[in-house]
């Protein structure tokens, strides 16, 4: 070909900036025979029997003719095209740009072939010229993609200059075109994340398996997409951002403001943590009370989360970033719900009637309990009981009740104030308000808890005695020991179950708000391509004799997996009673504690 012979004859080294322009071969002044780039050596290996796959971005399908720039993955026999370099260009500058991107993203790019978008019918000279470019940028295999303007007919050719390793293997490979949306592939994140080795030494590209290599290549070549067509760079490229770099004023402002805000909040939070770690709070009665109240645990959990969010360290990987975002959104939602609750409480002055209703309700409950105890002290359901034990226990419980009622009546003027302050605490979040409510319920029903403890302990003793006797007298003697206080404890058990159920429901709500990854769910709803479970392919219009064209789309992660992957660690302070163990504890008389014991399994 004319181009090659002239180039070999006039190998002038002085003319280093020969510009390559499209046109008939004799118009090119001094093409420089450059040494083959490093990419050629890597690209010479190939897997026999595999169809060559060319991943082509959909944004370049209407671009003008030029050079294809991207990465060749020999293990999968696939060429990932990242951009199209348009004429006129200087080969040296193209190579400099590729070297720059290689340094920035540690991904080895090369010129893969030529792209021809035919505007008119007769442009044969362009075709010949493009073929000649193969000598300047030699790459194995050399791709030649061609498209008629306005038609869906594409033609692809992949030629090899080297002698094939095995005879019978053709010089030309069969090519399959796979179109992909560059923006979505760049922004998306594959789950599970491919475990890529962090390559610190050399420029060897990380070998991610299969399609993860495509995602990885596009993500690492971000430096290539930074310039758009309005920049006066040496090389004119076409890619997803070439019509204008995407940016948002709000995002930029937020980024600038986040630095000082984070520093300020981190200081405040560290002050608060230092104050709470003060020695005064470690003294025995206070430390016991703090560890048992759920509101303290919730506040501590929130403090930890806020310290994580406002820490001045940048997130190292996408998982940490998602966790920070989830925590922030969850805290904001919590505070919003708390403020809504506060406004509702203040709205029609509901605290007053609520406080006034509390004392009569407590009185009513106490009266009912008294009737119950009187009934048990007599002959309940016609059963004959141990009179002495009955009287002792009955009177003991009646005195408890009397103490409690006096305590409630003492507190009654202060209840409205207390409720007002509880409502104020909703500013810190709905979860805090719910925790305080749960603690108040626990305190108000403390007498029931005391009765339950006495009854359960006695019942447990009885059961132990019975079981040992049963072992002795199995089938030989009628067991005359009867259970005296059991009916009392069954009724108390029902009350205790109710209290445990209400507390459990509240803790469930708190845990739900604490652990649900709202930001990830919102992202899955509004931008499903960001969280990818995999890819899916669609076969495009096909004609016999033409290469196969596929469209690659992102398959979003299902909602269940989103919640499972990004669930925040919950507080772990609330006792969770699975129903089975609850029933077992009731039957055998083991105590059901309202707080978490040391031996309990973490949720």
């Amino acid at each position: 070909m004319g181009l090659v012979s002239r180039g070999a004859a006039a190998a002038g080294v002085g003319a280093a900036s020969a510009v390559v322009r499209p046109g008939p071969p004799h118009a090119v002044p001094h093409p420089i025979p450059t040494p083959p780039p490093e990419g050629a050596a890597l690209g010479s290996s190939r897997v026999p029997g595999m169809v060559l796959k060319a991943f082509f971005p959909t944004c370049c399908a209407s671009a003008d003719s030029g050079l294809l720039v991207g990465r060749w993955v020999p293990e999968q026999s696939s060429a990932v095209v990242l951009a199209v370099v348009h004429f006129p260009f200087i080969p040296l500058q193209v190579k400099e740009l590729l070297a720059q991107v290689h340094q920035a993203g540690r991904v080895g790019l090369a010129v893969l072939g030529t792209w021809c978008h035919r505007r008119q019918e007769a442009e044969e000279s362009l075709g010949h010229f493009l073929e000649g470019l193969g000598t300047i940028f030699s790459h194995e295999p050399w791709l030649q993609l061609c498209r008629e303007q306005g038609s869906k007919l594409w033609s692809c050719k992949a030629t090899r200059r080297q002698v094939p390793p095995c005879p019978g293997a053709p010089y030309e490979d069969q090519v399959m075109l796979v179109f992909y949306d560059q923006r979505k592939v760049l922004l998306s994140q594959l789950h599970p994340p491919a475990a890529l080795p962090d390559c610190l030494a050399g420029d060897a590209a990380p070998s991610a398996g299969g399609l993860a290599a495509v995602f990885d290549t596009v993500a690492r070549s971000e430096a290539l997409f930074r310039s758009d067509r309005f920049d006066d760079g040496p090389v004119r490229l076409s890619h997803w951002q070439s019509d204008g770099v995407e940016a948002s004023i709000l995002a930029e402002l937020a980024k600038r403001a986040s630095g000082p805000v984070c520093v300020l909040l981190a200081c405040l939070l560290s002050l608060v943590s230092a104050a709470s770690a003060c020695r005064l709070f470690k003294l025995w009665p206070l430390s016991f009370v703090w560890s048992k109240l759920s509101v303290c645990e919730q506040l501590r959990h929130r403090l930890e989360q806020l310290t994580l969010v406002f820490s001045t360290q940048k997130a190292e990987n996408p998982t940490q970033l998602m966790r920070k975002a989830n925590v922030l959104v969850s805290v904001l939602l919590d505070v919003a719900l708390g403020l809504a609750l506060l406004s509702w409480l203040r709205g029609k002055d509901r605290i007053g009637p609520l406080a006034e209703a509390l004392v009569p309700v407590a009185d009513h409950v106490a009266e009912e309990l008294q009737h119950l105890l009187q009934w048990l002290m007599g002959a309940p359901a016609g059963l004959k009981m141990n009179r002495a034990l009955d009287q002792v226990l009955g009177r003991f419980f009646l005195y408890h009740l009397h103490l409690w009622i006096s305590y409630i009546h003492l507190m009654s003027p202060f209840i409205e104030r207390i409720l007002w302050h509880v409502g104020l605490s909703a500013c810190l979040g709905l979860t805090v308000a719910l925790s305080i409510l749960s603690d108040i319920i626990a305190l108000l029903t403390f007498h029931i808890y005391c009765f339950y403890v006495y009854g359960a302990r006695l019942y447990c003793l009885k059961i132990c005695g019975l079981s040992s006797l049963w072992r002795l007298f199995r089938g030989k003697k009628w067991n005359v020991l009867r259970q005296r206080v059991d009916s009392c404890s069954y009724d108390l058990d029902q009350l205790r179950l109710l209290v445990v159920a209400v507390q459990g429901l509240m803790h469930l709500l708190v845990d739900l708000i604490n652990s649900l990854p709202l930001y990830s769910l919102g992202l899955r709803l509004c931008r499903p391509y960001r969280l990818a479970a995999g890819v899916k392919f669609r076969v495009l219009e096909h004609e016999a004799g033409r290469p196969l064209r596929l469209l690659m789309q992102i398959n979003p992660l299902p909602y269940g997996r989103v919640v499972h992957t990004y669930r925040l660690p919950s507080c772990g302070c609330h006792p969770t009673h699975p129903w089975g163990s609850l029933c077992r504890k009731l039957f055998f008389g083991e105590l059901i504690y309202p707080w978490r014991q040391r031996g309990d399994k973490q949720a």
Partner: protein
Amino acid sequence: MEDERSFSDICGGRLALQRRYYSPSCREFCLSCPRLSLRSLTAVTCTVWLAAYGLFTLCENSMILSAAIFITLLGLLGYLHFVKIDQETLLIIDSLGIQMTSSYASGKESTTFIEMGKVKDVVINEAIYMKVIYYLCILLKDPMEPHGISQVVPVFQVSTEQLSKVFSPKKICYLSPFSAFLLLLMFSRNVNSSCQDYLRTPDSYF
């Protein structure tokens, strides 16, 4: 090139198989399942509403009737969206992978793509469910163990007892010479009954 044949499944419904040949390296198999029958829908609706009316005559609460209507509607929507599969498609692309798409009656499509690098082999398993049925499975490689299998993925959820006649061994995709040979052996009634057997005696096939 397109090709259509019809079969019947183990419950007696009509199935249609469509085979499309896009290129030497791309094939598609599309299985259409029987549609929702009006008879069963009417039967279920009548049962639910009769039960609700019975409860209503006992309790004299009209909320029960509205609840029954809501339950029927929600149940039908849920069934169409999550359970009833209209069509299953298997797309095989040489040196890329295998894609399985299930289209539900409400229009939802759920797609799974398995890369070729992860496929160890394709086998036909037999299961005993009132009678012997055969179903096609894909064996996936285990990244930890080179000779192990991490997962067995059945290809079509709707199984047919005539599946061995559907996939003639010569026309299956070019996964590997090994798998074609194996399928040929299997069609001579030397069927694998479990993956454990396969793992224990792979050499008996050579």
